[in-house]
């Protein structure tokens, strides 16, 4: 059984177990699946061309024809929110996937080899950790110009130490347990110990961290777009839409900012709830 299958199977099982007992988890799953569907099919689901201007009146309030209203160029906000899902979600996904993989690899390497390797890895971890994610992202923008790519990669790096610290601590603890010594004495190969025993032991923590990281990455990237350093108008990125809707908000038409904001909040909330529950279930399962 491959690690991925193992992970997938375990996580799926835990999620299934959680959902049957907890309506909140069902709601969270619904939101997460919904957002995933929107990310994949958003463009197709959009009732209007998200970038077409004057598809409706300018800055119209929500109505049957335009459920979320229209923005200052007469674009349909619902269509833009739908089309904006993918760019808003892909960034955080890249951040957490990359940082989780890198962080886990770094953390496990450090814990596994210990000594000088651990020393160097720990220094690297501390170094990156010392530069706040937002600062690293801003630095990246200053170097490579605006757009989401640079901040996304910067955040992916900035999140590495968080994962690496967690995994390093977890791996050290796990490696210290007698069953690891037992496996060693048995003559089980290093790769087998690592991938069949150590990695699965760390997966729940990694998964939990990944969900939390997703939320933070989403907030950070949206903030970067809000600051005008990330995705650029007229992109239908949620952060850009929230920022772009500010004048309308002050003018009394909150929907241009609030609908995309609602989706940011809902997505992060749902992912956080899932992460928290999965952690709880995994912890209970361990005991």
């Amino acid at each position, binding site marked *: 059984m491959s690690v991925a299958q193992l992970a997938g199977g375990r996580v799926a099982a835990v999620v299934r177990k959680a959902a049957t007992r907890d309506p909140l988890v069902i709601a969270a799953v619904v939101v997460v699946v919904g957002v995933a569907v929107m990310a994949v099919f958003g463009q197709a689901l959009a009732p209007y061309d998200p970038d077409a201007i004057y598809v409706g009146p300018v800055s119209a309030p929500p109505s049957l024809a335009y459920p979320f209203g229209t923005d200052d160029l007469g674009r349909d906000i619902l269509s833009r929110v739908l089309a904006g899902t993918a760019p808003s979600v892909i960034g955080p996904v890249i951040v957490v996937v990359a940082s989780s993989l890198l962080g886990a690899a770094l953390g496990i390497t450090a814990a596994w080899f210990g000594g000088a390797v651990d020393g160097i890895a720990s*220094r690297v971890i501390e170094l990156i950790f010392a530069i706040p994610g937002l600062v690293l992202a801003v630095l990246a923008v200053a170097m490579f110009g605006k757009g989401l790519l640079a901040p996304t990669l910067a955040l992916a790096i900035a999140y590495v130490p968080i994962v690496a610290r967690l995994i390093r601590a977890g791996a050290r603890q796990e490696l210290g347990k007698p069953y690891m010594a037992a496996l060693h004495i048995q003559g089980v190969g290093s790769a087998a110990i690592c991938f069949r025993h150590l990695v699965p032991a760390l997966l729940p923590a990694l998964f939990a961290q990944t969900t939390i990281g997703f939320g933070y990455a989403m907030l950070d990237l949206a903030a970067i777009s*809000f600051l005008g350093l990330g995705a650029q108008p007229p992109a239908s990125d949620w952060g850009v839409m929230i920022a772009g809707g500010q004048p309308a*908000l002050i003018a009394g038409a909150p929907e241009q900012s609030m609908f995309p904001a609602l989706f940011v*909040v809902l997505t992060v909330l749902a992912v956080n709830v899932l992460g928290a529950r999965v952690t709880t279930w995994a912890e209970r399962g361990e005991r």
Partner: protein
Amino acid sequence: MNAGVVRTLAGKLGELALTLFLASVVIFSAVLLTPGDPVAALAGGIRPTPELIEAIRAQHHLDDPVWQQYLHWVGGVLTGDLGTSFVYKTDVAALIAPRIGVTVLLVLYTAVLIAIFGIGSGVVAATRGPRADRAVLIGTSIGMAMPTFVVAILLIWVFARVLGWFPVYGAGEGFLDSLYHLTLPAISLAVLYIAFFSRITRGAVVGQLHAEHVDTARVRGIPRSQIFRRHVFLNASPQILAVSGVTVAGLFATSAIAEQAFGIGGLGSLLTEAAARKDLPVVQVISLLLVVVFVVLNAVADIAIAVIDPDSAKPRRNA
């Protein structure tokens, strides 16, 4: 001072210096990795003639070997010469100095809010029964999903359009007026962290409430409030302190969002503005400054933890 604290202090100082050195190298190399010629940026806005290019290269030591440039930069930073802004053509120090105050005030204000409401609600959740716990849990779940800038624009909307109790622009003048002006920005920055601290505090306090040494105190008839203060909260505090350094340091970076939304001329807004304008010298110095803040605050937090918990300074046996 006990040995553990001394060891932490000494170890921290060494780590601190090394991390700062490495961070300064990383931040410095940003210039080298940046695509494009810094000369264009330095000439900024005027057609550079070859002589001008020559002059700029010489003035900014662009023809020196990289390590010399680094030493020059670091030397400058250490002696207070922070370089010249690409955009403003002035000393970076002159740009930064007047802005530090307001950002520090904003961060401190936010930290106080976080301490009061984050730790407070965490304690309530841990000690006031399942209902309070549930209420706080719901509140913090939402709080953890609220982006700072969404809170900011919501507050602006509410206070600018409806209530008008607090100003929604600027940093004010004088201490009290500044506090008044920074209230909404501080709230918008604090919400996320209040939720975070509430969770951390709750976890730490619950962990201690069920700790065996608390049982001991209970059998011995120590009054509840005293048990909470001296045994539960004190013992929970290292966990809270452990995230405090990171948080407060992080606030210096995230303050950019509130500063932008509320039109405050602070360090954060300067950082974003400089990044947007590719004003690398400014970005570098502020980044380095934030790293220093981070490293120092974390070291302070670690030392505080070591004072409370001498064992934290001791390496653990791991086999």
